[in-house]
């Protein structure tokens, strides 16, 4: 890891330099409601400085909605008929600038499930993440309950920490170092800088409530006793079974596959699906293993907090709080976590 110091103007130049070989995206203010979302940017001034996360997680860059798996034509009898053409996206590399540590972590977590998925991995390959640490905790943040940190570096190539006048840039990977070099104008950070960053990190972490070893505790619990816990019924009763939580969740990655054909030219796409939707599990026969709302609500949380940790280790949640903010009926994953862990 290399640590640099860069001024606000220097950062702006970084972005401008990067746009020569990368598509650069950053959080941009979308409307008067203070909503920010990802958009292509050409300079620092376009980027929102609002605290917290963007409306949508960065999974849109890794699991685009939709993603073409391959294309084909279906002209009977013609030579190219039914020949499938692979469409692994090898577009321009891109930089996501201003990624919050929680979001960055989601790329790594999802990668555990997508290890063998060439499309996802190609997107990982071509996407560089420049993160920004969080100094201010939002009411719905809980990254420190699920193994994250406001200064977390997991998944990032560079972490930016805003100091009084400047930024400290931790280049976390080789790609991060080369980005810094491509940006130019950075000085190596001094010991003083490092110390300041460290104290900021501690201050920020301490300001946040934390729940250590969540994943480990959850892994250690009995699957079926969690599955049969009492609270699922009451919890699910208010759910309306929409997909707002899953679609805005950085670590919900379920998808469906479908063919689309227009005038004999077709493509097979995958697109987001949600285990909240009743048809998600419905068999062609009409039989539905999770036909009840309570089963679906339970599956969403059990997948994140039990099945995923059992399979891969960490919980499949980064604590960004989007699901809490955006749930139309205020289902709050923090309450579920507390219930599962048996803490107040």
């Amino acid at each position: 890891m290399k640590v640099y110091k860069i001024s606000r103007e220097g950062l702006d130049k970084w972005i401008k330099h990067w746009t020569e070989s990368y598509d650069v995206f950053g959080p941009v203010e979308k409307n008067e409601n203070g909503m920010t979302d990802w958009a292509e940017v050409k300079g620092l001034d376009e980027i929102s400085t609002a605290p917290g996360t963007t409306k949508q997680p960065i999974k849109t860059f890794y699991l685009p909605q939709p993603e073409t798996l391959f294309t084909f034509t279906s002209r009977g009898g013609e030579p190219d008929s039914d020949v499938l053409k692979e469409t692994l996206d090898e577009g321009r590399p891109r930089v996501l600038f201003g990624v919050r540590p929680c979001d960055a972590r989601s790329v790594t977590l999802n990668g555990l499930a997508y290890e063998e998925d060439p499309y996802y991995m190609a997107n990982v390959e071509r996407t560089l993440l420049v993160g920004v640490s969080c100094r201010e905790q939002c009411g719905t943040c809980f990254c420190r309950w699920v193994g994250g940190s406001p200064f977390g570096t997991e998944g990032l190539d560079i972490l930016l920490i805003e100091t009084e006048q400047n930024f400290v840039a931790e280049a976390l990977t080789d790609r991060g170092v080369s980005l810094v070099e491509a940006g130019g104008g950075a000085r190596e950070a001094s010991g003083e800088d490092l110390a300041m960053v460290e104290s900021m990190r501690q201050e920020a972490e301490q300001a946040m409530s934390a729940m250590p070893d969540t994943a480990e505790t959850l892994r250690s619990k009995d699957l079926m006793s969690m599955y049969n816990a009492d609270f699922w019924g009451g919890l699910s009763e208010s759910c309306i079974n929409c997909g707002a939580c899953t679609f805005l969740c950085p670590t919900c990655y379920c998808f469906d596959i479908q063919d689309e054909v227009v005038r004999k030219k077709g493509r097979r796409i995958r697109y987001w699906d949600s285990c909240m939707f009743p048809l998600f599990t419905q068999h062609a026969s009409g039989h539905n293993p999770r036909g009840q709302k309570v089963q679906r609500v339970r599956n969403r949380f059990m997948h994140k907090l039990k099945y995923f940790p059992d399979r891969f280790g960490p919980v499949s949640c980064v604590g960004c709080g989007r699901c809490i903010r955006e749930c139309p009926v205020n289902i709050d994953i923090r309450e579920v976590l507390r219930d599962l862990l048996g803490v107040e």
Partner: protein
Amino acid sequence: MAESKKEQINNPYMPFPARIEDIIVETEDGNLKTFRLMLERPEDRENWSHVPGQFAMLSLAGRGEIPIGIASSPTEKDGLLFTVNKAGVVTGALHSMEVGASVGVRGPLGNGFPVDSELKGKNIVIIAGGFAFTTLRATLLYMLANRRDYGRITVIYGARTPGMLLYRKELEEWQKRDDVEMHVTIDRETQGWTGLVGFVPTVAGQVAPSPENAVALICGPPVMIKFTMPPLEKIGWTDEQVYLSLENRMKCGIGICGHCNCGPVYVCKDGPVFTRAEVMKLPVEF
């Protein structure tokens, strides 16, 4: 980039092109047909290897994919067999296709029956109902081809009517053999039927051999499985000896997309074959 090129070759979402070599209408209602498919590229044919009990995605460009159990045994060399029930968009389109048409095959997927490990040396009871016999046909043929590896083989297979039995010609042939014990039954008395009459669970209760050094492979509608267990349990069978094949909705087939999970397991990747003991530890979401 060179690395990603290599990944392309292993792209698990790309079906292998295949051609329909033969179509057999299996049942009297015409809703079940067996398709014999030949992979078109020699290298695909060469690389292909599957275990009985595995499935594959049959893919029709423009229609989609559908997981179908592989009905042919790895020991059969003239293509892959899939017995398909006409139920939805893909199967409906497949049923309207003719010999020579192009399809795609993605697989083999899933785990299959442990024919080369746990099953070896054991007495085998195959219990099947309706059109769930497909992968068990593959299993049976595999075992018949490696007959010495297994003990007694008993097959209990039932359908609603004689006309709804799959692989009727083969059933007759197997019935003639002395190294496999066939019990083919239909639900109700029908003119011209001289074989067994009665539901599979009942017949299983009557003819199932002792559980000693034996395993049972059961495929069929959930209600059949439910009623088959008590008579087996009565004569001492345990859940560890019974293998089932689950049929959850599957999309990616490789344990990512999330559709087929049953608690922590992905039926497509960790299954579809489980022992009943394993299944009993899972939430009832299948």
